[in-house]
Each structure stands twice: as structure tokens, then as C-alpha cells.
């Protein structure tokens, strides 16, 4: 770079200006407001608000369930994207549009429906509950609904990459004597890593902040199925704005750190793919 050549595209300063403006107004200012509200607490108050046995249990649950859901989404999402890209079958278009539905549906509706399905008298629960599978009002319920909400993010990031991949390379691998598993592992999968990691990050981040659906399926039992956003709402009910935002700030910082880490991983996986 170093100012050697003129840029090919015009309007760089204008577009950068707008980008910075919107990022500031839409993202930075709200986050700053959040931090400044939390800063109204003394250090001891802050610690008391964010670090109790109960909040710790909620953080573990929030991050754990989001992580588990994102991991499941990666596997399922890759499979779905694969099927949609590689096969032609009747109803494929409809299936393709169905993928985005969780994004459009108010998540509370998703939560209510999931809870109704998996309770003892629900359509699915009547078979699952006798087997000891509690798909409602449990930690499993939280993961289930988060999988539902995060799935489109993985499918939609993996799909275009798969579409760009030619079947030629797979055929070449096969003709060179690779087994199907080897072809998958060595030829198909590596170019997908960056997209899978991005999909994971998106669905993970989406799950961390999810409130609407989870409160309806989790049962909200303290120490067991209470997610961190519920604690934020509980503190808001006391009009304890500072304490509520303090918990939000912890979530923000940890999420940001994790997203940075995932970005680094993605960068690294891209380098790996290029080297291969």
C-alpha cells in the first residue's frame, strides 16, 4: 500500500466516512452507553452484580449452551448445505426457502412452539419424556431451540462456497484412488473451513444474546436453566439499571473476546487452506 498508486475505485473517503458514521451511530454509541451506565457503579458494586454463584451459573449455561448449539449447527448446517447444493430433487427450492424461516419468525413463537412440542403431553414429548428425554424446561431444551435459531447462519455461509466448488476435484480424487472418506476429508472439507468457522461464529453470537425463545423453553430455574439475559431482565425489574448493564458488559466483553479468537482461527484456517 504505502500510498504508491491511486485507488482504482473512486469515493473512498466518502464511503469510509459513511461507514464510520453508521458504525458509530448504530454500534459504538449504544455500546458506549452500556459501558457508561455500568461505570456508574463502584468497583465493589460491579463485582457484586456480576460475580455471584448465581451469575456464574448463568454465564456457564449461556456460553455452554450457545457453544453446543453452534457446534451442532455446524454439523447439521454443512449437511443441509451439501444436500441443497449437490443434489437435485423435487421440493429443493421450498426446502431452500425454509432454511431462512427461523430468521423471520419472532423467536418467542419458536420458543412457545418448541415448549409445546416437547412437554409430556406434546406431540414429540409423549414419546420422548417416557424415555427420559426432557426436551422442554431443561438445558437440552435451551440447546434445541438455539440450534433452530442458529442453523440458517451456517447453511447460508457454507452454501455459496460449496456452490463454487467443482465436482471435478472430487472426481479427480476418486480417479487417483481416494476413498470417499478421503475425498471428503482431504478435498471437500478444507476449503469449507473458513465458511464453517464464520457460520459457527455467527450462530454462536446469535445464541448468546437470544432471550425471546429461551425464556419460554428453559423454565428459568435459578442455577439450573437460568440464562444470563434473564438475570439482566430481573435486575431491570428492580430499576437497577447499573447492575443490569454490568451483567450485559460482562457478556459483551466475553463475546467480543471469543469472536476475535474465532476471527483469528478463521484467518489461520484460510492460510492453511491456501497452503494445502
Amino acid at each position, binding site marked *: 500500500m504505502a500510498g504508491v498508486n491511486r485507488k482504482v475505485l473512486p469515493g473512498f473517503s466518502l464511503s469510509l466516512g459513511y461507514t464510520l458514521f453508521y458504525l458509530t451511530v448504530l454500534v459504538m454509541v449504544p455500546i458506549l452507553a452500556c459501558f457508561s451506565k455500568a461505570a456508574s457503579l463502584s468497583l465493589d458494586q460491579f463485582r457484586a452484580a456480576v460475580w455471584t454463584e448465581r451469575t456464574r451459573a448463568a454465564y456457564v449455561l449461556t456460553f455452554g449452551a450457545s457453544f453446543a448449539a453452534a457446534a451442532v449447527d455446524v454439523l447439521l448446517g454443512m449437511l443441509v448445505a451439501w444436500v441443497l447444493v449437490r443434489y437435485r430433487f423435487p421440493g429443493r427450492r421450498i426446502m431452500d426457502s425454509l432454511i431462512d424461516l427461523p430468521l423471520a419468525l419472532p423467536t418467542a413463537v419458536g420458543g412457545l412452539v418448541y415448549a409445546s412440542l416437547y412437554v409430556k403431553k406434546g406431540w414429540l414429548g409423549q414419546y420422548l419424556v417416557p424415555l427420559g428425554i426432557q426436551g422442554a*424446561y431443561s438445558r437440552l431444551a435451551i440447546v434445541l431451540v438455539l440450534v433452530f435459531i442458529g442453523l440458517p447462519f451456517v447453511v447460508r455461509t457454507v452454501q455459496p462456497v460449496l456452490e463454487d466448488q467443482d465436482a471435478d476435484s472430487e472426481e479427480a480424487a476418486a480417479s487417483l484412488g481416494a476413498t470417499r472418506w478421503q475425498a471428503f476429508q482431504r478435498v471437500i472439507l478444507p476449503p469449507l473451513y473458513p465458511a464453517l468457522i464464520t457460520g459457527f461464529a455467527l450462530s454462536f453470537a446469535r445464541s448468546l444474546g437470544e432471550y425471546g425463545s429461551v425464556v419460554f423453553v428453559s423454565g428459568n430455574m435459578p*442455577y439450573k436453566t437460568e440464562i444470563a439475559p434473564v438475570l439482566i431482565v430481573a435486575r*431491570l425489574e428492580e430499576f437497577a439499571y447499573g447492575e443490569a448493564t454490568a451483567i450485559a458488559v460482562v457478556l459483551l466483553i466475553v463475546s467480543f473476546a471469543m469472536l476475535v479468537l474465532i476471527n483469528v482461527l478463521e484467518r489461520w484456517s484460510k492460510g492453511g487452506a491456501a497452503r494445502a
Partner: protein
Amino acid sequence: MKKVLLSCVALGGLLAATAGARPAHSQELLNVSYDPTRELWRDINARFIAQYAREKGVTLQIKQSHGGSSTQARAVIDGLEADVVTLASVIDTDAIAQRGLITGDWTERLPHDSLPYYSTIVFVVRKGNPKGIKDWPDLVKPGVEIITPNPKTSGNGYLSFFSAWGSVVLRGGSRQNAVDYVTKLYRQVPVLDSGARGAAATFVQREIGDVHLAWENEAHLEVREARGDLELVYPPLSIRAEPHVAVVDQNVDRKKTRAAAEAYLKYLYTDEAQEIIAKHFYRPSNEAVLNRHAATFPAMRLFSVKEIALGFADAHKKFIAEGGVFDTIYKPR
């Protein structure tokens, strides 16, 4: 950058000017209320608008806003331009008053402590009341599952808690007895929904639990809609829930809507409005009207929150807020 800011300011100014210049013969009021009152206010508004037009020649448009009571209070604090607030609990109205939006001794301004109606927490049970639930002690019998929302996030939730607490200490029980009782009770709550709506769905649609501790007005609707599958049980004693109404002084003075807003709230005490209130299963504060509906509102002892604490805010702080009794019920596994 500067230009953009300037045009924003100019646009804002223009909007403010047009809002201010509205002709005086039509006015708009915003009533910020809590969740289940939608139908109640729709009926009341229709009658009041007609009456006000007849008597004052002013065409009113009354907008309603509904949501969780304290969420609504926060919205008003943060700038939602409510002319009147009709929230579920004095805690929420007081939070608005504390920020200076409502001034002075606001509960004194209207009859009956600014309570056109009141309500309580009752029991809804399954058909035939198979677990024989009649009174508070029956709730903690082994095998009884109770549905009530999370006291930390729901008004229905903390009113249930206060009722449960009062049922022990007002019958001669000690504080320790009360702590033991609510601990036992909440251990038998399988799901802590975040709000009254969620709890109703859990109990009615998902058929979880044996008894639902609900607002009296919602219990009536729940039983009516269940067409015989659910029954109402009135415990002999329960809390008196007090959804106060108030004019938001700062907003009405700025919007020049004080006269209409005050007339609106005064109208709630007329026989006509009291009848509508009773029809929607809220207990009218006018005793004559209440007595006319004695069949709908059986006599029960409705204790005041002052009998178990200094007031609603104090009770919330002692029992529900961070570090209160409720926090001691659940233990980490």
C-alpha cells in the same frame, strides 16, 4: 457531517412545530398500561371519547400501549410520552414519580387512593379439583405442582409470593414459618415463566401443574376459555393488588393535554366506567357497583401489602430483589 447534523436538527424542529400546532378541537392521549388490560381500556375509551366529544366538543384519540408493567414504566422514564399511566403496581408508577415526571402526592389526587379498581391473586385448578386445593397450605402438599411466574421478572409473580407470605404471617405464623412455607412452595414450581402470559400458556396449553396462581381477572378469562376443563378457587385470603392510575404531569403540561387526561381518569370513577371495569373482572372500587357483582367477586380477605411490609416497594426489596428472601430459596446444586 455538519450539514447532515444541521438537517437532522431542522427536521426535528419541523416535527416538533407541527406537533405543537395541532388544532385544539382534536387531541390525542396516550395511555400506557400493562398487559391484560387491552380489552378493558378499549371499552372504556370508546365510551369516554363519545362522552368527552358531547360535553366538551373535543374529539379525542386515545392510544393504548401495553406490555410488562415495569418495562412500560421504564419506557415512560426513558421518554415515551404517556399522558396517563395505568400500571399494575405502585412500584412502577413510583419509579416514574421518582424521576420527577409525576409530582407531589399523586395517590391523593383521585378517589380511593387513585385506585379505580383493584384485584387479587386466586387459584385456577383442573376440572373437579383433583388435588383438593382450597387454601394456601394445600399448595405445599406432596405431589402438588404450582405454576406461577418468576417473582423477579413478573408482577403476577411477586404478588403470588406476597400472598403466600401473608397467608402464613397473618395467620400467626412466624417469619421462619413463612420462609419455610415459600421455600417449600417454590420447590414445587416446575417452571418459572418470565411473565403472566407464559405461565398461563404453561398451565393451560401444556397442561403442566395442578394449580395456577393468577390475577383474578385473568383467571376468569382462563376458566371461561377452557370451557369446563378448569375451575376457579378463591382462597380465603390473598393480597390486595393495587393498579394505580396517574396523570404524567410533565408530559401533559408539555403536550397541553392536562384537562383531557384528568377528565379521562375521573371518568373511571363514574358508575358507567365502574360497570365496564366489573364486566372485565376487575374489582370496582365503588362498593355499590362491587356489591351488584357479588356473584363474580366472592368476599375474601384481601390483605394490604402494609400488613406484611411498609409498602409494595419495601416488600419487593425485602422479599424479591437481589439478596431478598426469594434468593435464599434456590441453592446451587
